[in-house]
């Protein structure tokens, strides 16, 4: 039937007819395969509990939807990469991740000062990984399109966006000659553009300045 059957049967689900329940294994399998129906099920089943937990922090810095989505992203990636050992139920795992997300966001909201955000790799090699990823997400949302494009290609991301055949390894860096042919520029231009964009990204990332 496919994933669209929920639309046809939605009137029945109002009456709790055809209400689906999944086992833990089915949930983990659905998450590994990135199934939309499984994310919908997880939202329907677990969001209210997460929202209650978020509200218990009594913080204006927190948005329940945002916390849930961020938490589910982290949980899903951990499951997909085999980092979830299955020692607790999925609900408990998701709840614990969302709780950490809340703590991080509150911490961030309370201490945001540019001077404190400088990262020196030599001095702080153990800088919080989540914090770095969060910062990179903020930067990537502000990065200009051309830089984003060339960095994505160089780091082997977004093959489907550029009509490139995916290789066995999902993340394979492209050579500058290949990038140049996709973008319609010279290989040396591609190299220079990538270097320039990477320098700007590095500077913003390590010094927490805006990407301009």
């Amino acid at each position, binding site marked *: 039937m496919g994933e669209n059957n*929920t639309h046809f049967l939605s009137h029945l689900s*109002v009456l709790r007819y055809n209400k689906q329940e999944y086992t833990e294994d089915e949930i983990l399998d659905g998450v590994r395969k990135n199934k939309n129906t499984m994310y*919908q099920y997880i939202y329907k089943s677990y969001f209210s509990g997460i929202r209650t937990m978020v509200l218990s922090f009594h913080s204006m810095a927190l948005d329940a939807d945002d916390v849930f989505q961020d938490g589910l*992203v982290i949980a899903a990636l951990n499951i997909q990469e085999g980092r979830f050992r299955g020692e607790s139920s999925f609900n408990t795992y998701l709840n614990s991740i969302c709780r950490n997300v809340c703590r991080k966001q509150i911490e961030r909201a309370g201490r945001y000062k540019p001077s404190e955000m400088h990262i020196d*790799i030599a001095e702080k090699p153990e800088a919080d990984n989540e914090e770095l990823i969060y910062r990179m997400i903020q930067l*990537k949302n502000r990065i200009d399109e051309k830089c984003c494009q060339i960095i994505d290609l160089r780091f082997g991301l977004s093959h489907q966006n550029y009509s490139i055949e995916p290789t066995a390894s999902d993340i394979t860096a492209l050579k500058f000659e290949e990038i140049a042919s996709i973008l319609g520029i010279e290989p040396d231009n591609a190299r220079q553009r990538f270097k320039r964009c990477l320098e700007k*990204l*590095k500077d913003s*990332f390590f010094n927490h300045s805006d990407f301009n």
Partner: protein
Amino acid sequence: METHEKEFTLIERYADGMMADSEREAFEQGLEAEPELKRMLNEYTLIKKTYIEASRRIELKQTIQAAIATNKTVRLNQRKMWLIAASVMLIAAIGTLIVFSTGTKKPDNQFTANSLPGEKAVEGKQNTMKEFGNMDVVKLNIPDNAFFPDEYTYLKANDTILFQWPSELSQRYLTIYNSRGELVMKATIKKNIKEYVLMPGVLKPGVYYWKFMNDSMLIRIRVNNN
């Protein structure tokens, strides 16, 4: 700049795994002797790893948001359906109440067959009760076996009128006629009931005759303006 350009190229080739084994070994040995090169490599590796992870999270979050948005749309439609159903039921309930409540007033609003359609034989406001409006007072003063109100009783339009009759009578209808002989009210009286209360304002000012059915004598009363 040229040095950095050279180092940048080396770092990229090393990070991409494009060096030959011997070149890679020489590069790794050189890292220990060149802290600046090592720092640049660490920065590049961190940036690359973090960028890839951030991109995956952004893409996955978009997938999850799209899935949740679909779910929210379905739930919104379900809520709308329930609201519509509840509204229809509420309207039906209100309509039923209106229909049944207007139906129970019929005994007080009966007219003769000759009365003009839409003509109201009775009107008036339900004002504060005076004199006969206080039913307790009326009851205390009336003998048990008398007709009340009796002949030529003067009443006001805003009075509550208590009709009473001898207890031994067992007729079934209380009727009121206006001065033209038209029936303006007919009330069914249940067994063993010895009185009937007519609320203020039901009778317009005028002369009326009331009768407890099967009793041959009409009793005249007059209702005046206030």
